[in-house]
Each structure stands twice: as structure tokens, then as C-alpha cells.
């Protein structure tokens, strides 16, 4: 992959506001409702006027079917008349992709202040879509992200010697963080025994290896570093970012580090830091094997050491690499990565419920795409935030 030198974009923009809607089980609220609620909170958090927003990016869940002009409609409901508006979909990789896009729009002079938002209502519709590319997997009962990640887990166990208990250590650590987060969907602490007793969903994955299902939304406001300096919140600079798109995650170890490595390399290069400089990270944790994968792909540990790295407690708030300090998708709730962005910002502001003392460099990752395809196509995104 060709990597552009993006230093020119480093620390030119900032995340000035964050907002999460109510989230959990809220069957009566629409996807639009969640997006509007989260957006309003982000606008208030940033202390900006609605009229200063001139760019709107919206993540649209594929659950919603065909919804033309979704981003424009979110803008319209907010009373915003943007000069640039786009609906984006890379699944859980989208929020960081939006922050990248916002940084480019601002750098190009097309926008000054960009709202990035999302809302999702998971109402079961009973109609199962035969998605493009799924016909060589679904007839065998291999359906969606869970079975896909179960295969990734099986290969990790085979190639790296990772155990189910080591996956459990990830779930236990993130739940311990969620226990301190009053907004988290799951707050009751769990033990390794709880993990091992939780029902098998798709062997080798147990229920506690899988993310939650969440109705809710999230948003953030991206503006120029210069403008952000004059706003209400402490300056949180967008220091580096990167993307990588892979159609072959089930061969993640071919290059020794795996799919997504280039996304982190681009972000590190742009921010002028390396994995050892990251003080706190929000890893996209749809399933525990994905966390294991990211630890290796993003350079936090060697392939053969990932299992013992997590089992030794390194992901805990007081560990060597505090991770998912709000609880992540596994315990806080699934906001397609907006919860991760919000927590990465809170760590720099010093306002996390699980604050890493003196955190000045905070990383956040995203991941998503089309796991139903065989082979699946997935996107990895990485952003590095820095205290201004």
C-alpha cells in the first residue's frame, strides 16, 4: 500500500465536542432520533452554535435498508444547511473515517466545522436479506460477524496457541472498566469462571466473547485546531490517522502482523509516535479475537505473546496498555465506534470514569465492513489524539 506523508494534516484539527445519545434497549426511539439526540449533545458539549456547522457526515447502518440522502436528512432535521454532506458506511470503522474526512474537508477549506454522527435502532424485522456476496457462506449456516470471528479465533488458537481463558481475560478487563462507567450497559463485574461458564455461541466463541446489541447513537464535532482553542473544552488534537482495507482477514498473519497494520503505521507516522508512546487505547472490540488481532497488528506485542499479554492484565486501567477504559463494545455498548471516540477524547480531557493519570496521547481504532462475504471485506481505521 502506498502511504502518503500526511504530516501536513497532523494536529491541524481537533475534536471539539462529543455526545452520546441514550443507549441500551430503547425500542421506541428511531435511528434518526438517536442521531439527533447525540448530535445535539455534541454541539452543546463543544459550546458551538448549530449554525457554525457546515459539514455533516453520517454513518448509516445497513440494517436500515435503502435510505437515500440519509446524511442530508439528518442535517435537515437539525436545521443545518451544510456545504458538504455525506453518508458513510464502513461499519465500525466509520467514525474514525469520518474524522479523517472532516480533517481533509477543513484542510481543503471546504468546511470549518464538521458534525460526525450516527444512530441505530436494532428493531428485528424478520426478513433476512441475502446480501451481495453471501451466497457461498450463508447456505451453510455461516452467517454474519459471529461465525466469521469464530473462524478468526480458531486460526489464532491454531497458529498462536491462544486459549479461551485468554479471550476471557479481555472480557473481564473491559467489564472491570465498565463497572466504573455509570452509562455502560453491562456493569456487573465478571470473572474468568463466568466467562468459561457463559454459553457457547459459535465454538470457540462464548457469549462473553461477543459485543452487546445496543440501540443508540453517537456524535463528535471536528473543527480546526485554531477554532477549537477558543471553544469550551480542552484542546484534543487529531494527531494521526490511517485506514486499511482488506478482503482477506482470515489470512491475517501472512505478513507477520496482520490486516490493519498499515492503518496504524500511517497514523504513527503522521503523529510522529510509535506504539510505545500510546498511553491509553480504545480498541474496536466486536469480539475478543479481534482485540487479540489488533494488539499484534498495531505493534503492541509480538504474535506469539498476545495471549500472555492480555492474561497478565496489561489491558487493565493500571496495566501497561490501558484499553477500552469505558468498557468497549463488549460491556459499555455497541455504538459502532462512537463510544470509543468519545472515551479517547475523555482520556485527553482528563474526564474518564477510568482515567489514566496524565494521559496525553490516546489512540482509538475502528473496524467494520462485510463479514458475511467469503472472503470477507473489512476496513481498519486508526486515529491518534493528543493533548493540545
Amino acid at each position: 500500500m502506498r502511504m502518503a506523508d500526511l504530516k501536513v494534516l497532523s494536529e491541524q484539527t481537533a475534536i471539539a465536542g462529543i455526545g452520546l445519545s441514550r443507549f441500551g434497549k430503547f425500542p421506541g426511539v428511531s435511528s434518526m432520533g438517536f442521531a439527533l439526540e447525540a448530535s445535539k449533545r455534541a454541539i452543546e458539549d463543544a459550546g458551538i452554535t448549530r449554525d457554525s456547522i457546515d459539514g455533516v457526515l453520517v454513518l448509516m447502518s445497513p440494517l436500515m435498508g435503502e435510505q437515500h440522502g440519509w446524511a442530508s436528512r439528518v442535517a435537515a432535521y437539525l436545521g443545518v444547511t451544510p456545504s458538504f454532506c455525506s453518508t458513510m458506511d464502513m461499519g465500525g470503522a466509520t467514525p474514525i473515517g469520518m474524522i479523517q474526512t472532516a480533517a481533509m474537508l477543513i484542510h481543503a477549506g471546504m468546511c470549518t466545522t464538521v458534525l460526525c454522527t450516527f444512530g441505530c435502532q436494532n428493531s428485528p424485522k424478520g426478513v433476512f436479506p441475502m446480501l451481495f456476496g453471501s451466497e457461498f457462506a450463508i447456505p451453510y449456516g455461516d452467517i454474519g460477524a459471529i461465525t466469521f470471528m469464530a473462524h478468526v479465533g480458531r486460526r489464532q488458537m491454531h497458529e498462536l496457541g491462544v486459549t479461551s481463558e485468554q479471550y476471557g481475560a479481555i472480557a473481564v478487563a473491559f467489564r472491570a472498566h465498565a463497572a466504573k462507567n455509570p452509562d455502560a450497559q453491562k456493569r456487573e463485574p465478571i470473572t474468568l469462571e463466568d466467562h468459561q461458564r457463559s454459553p457457547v455461541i459459535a465454538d470457540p466463541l462464548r457469549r462473553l466473547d461477543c459485543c452487546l446489541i445496543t440501540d443508540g447513537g453517537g456524535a463528535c464535532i471536528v473543527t480546526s485546531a485554531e477554532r477549537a482553542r477558543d471553544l469550551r473544552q480542552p484542546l484534543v488534537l487529531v494527531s494521526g490517522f490511517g485506514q486499511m482495507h482488506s478482503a482477506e482477514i482470515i489470512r491475517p498473519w501472512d505478513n507477520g502482523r496482520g490486516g490493519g497494520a498499515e492503518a496504524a503505521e500511517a497514523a504513527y507516522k503522521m503523529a510522529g509516535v510509535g506504539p510505545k508512546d500510546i498511553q491509553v487505547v480504545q480498541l474496536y472490540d466486536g469480539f475478543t479475537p479481534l482485540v487479540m488481532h489488533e494488539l499484534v497488528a498495531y505493534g503492541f506485542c509480538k504474535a506469539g505473546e498476545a495471549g500472555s499479554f492480555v492474561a497478565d492484565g496489561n489491558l487493565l486501567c493500571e496495566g501497561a496498555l490501558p484499553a477500552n477504559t469505558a468498557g468497549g463494545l463488549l460491556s459499555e455498548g455497541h455504538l459502532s465506534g462512537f463510544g470509543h471516540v468519545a472515551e479517547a477524547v475523555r482520556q485527553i480531557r482528563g474526564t474518564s470514569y477510568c482515567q489514566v493519570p496524565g494521559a496525553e496521547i490516546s489512540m482509538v481504532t475502528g473496524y467494520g465492513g462485510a463479514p458475511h462475504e467469503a472472503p470477507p471485506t473489512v476496513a481498519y481505521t486508526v486515529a491518534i489524539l493528543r493533548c493540545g
Partner: protein
Amino acid sequence: MFQLDKPMPGINEDSAPYWEGTRQGELRAQCCSDCGHLRFPPAIVCPKCLSENTTWRRLSGRGTVYSFIIVHRPQHPAFLDDVPYNVAIIELEEGLRMHTNIVDCSDEDLRIGMPVEAVFEKINDEVTLPKFRHAR
């Protein structure tokens, strides 16, 4: 009792020769007529050279288990009666990988690297699904 049908592949212009092959008891894959690249799943262009010139090649139907999982909580209600059931990814001799179920093998006996061969399960007049069994 109400019975929900399992989702079946939608056969299109790209994949029709593949499903015609399975009906005749053979596995086929597209081979690029220009660069020789073998590809699966079917597509209108070669991902290596973007050529649209394609021939279909018969595959050996032999391979090894690359990955397997045992589904206990299926994501589609039509599979509820089958649990627990396996889904495997096979690495074919020709290097391609494909999803399948391993038949005539208990879940406890499944192993990565296990040699397997294709068998063909007729679902209806249109669809025959290739499945795999332990090659002894």
C-alpha cells in the same frame, strides 16, 4: 408447524456455471484466460489483471480443513433444528478457500489440516451444495 426455509444462493450470470457444475457433481472455478489466475467466488473481472476473459476449470474437489467452528446459537431461525452444527473453511488443493459443512464426521473429530473431499448434496432442482467429508 411453521417451517422457515433456509436461505438459498441467488444464482446470477457470474455464478451460474459454478452451480451448473455442482449439479453435475463437480467443483469449478473461474480461471483468467489472460493471466491464468484462478479465482473464487466468481466475478466478472480478474482481480489480478482486470481481464474479462474467463474459462471455467474443473477442480479436484480435494483439500484440507483450514478452519472450523461449531455453531450453537445460529443467526437465522432456519438453522435452529441443526444445532450444534459445523461450518468449515476448506483450503482446496488449488489454493482457493471456500465455506462448507463437513458431513459424516462428529464435531469432536474435526481438526485443522484434516484431508477432505467434496460430496454433492442436492437441495432442489436448481441448487446442489458442495459439502465435504473426511478423505481416508
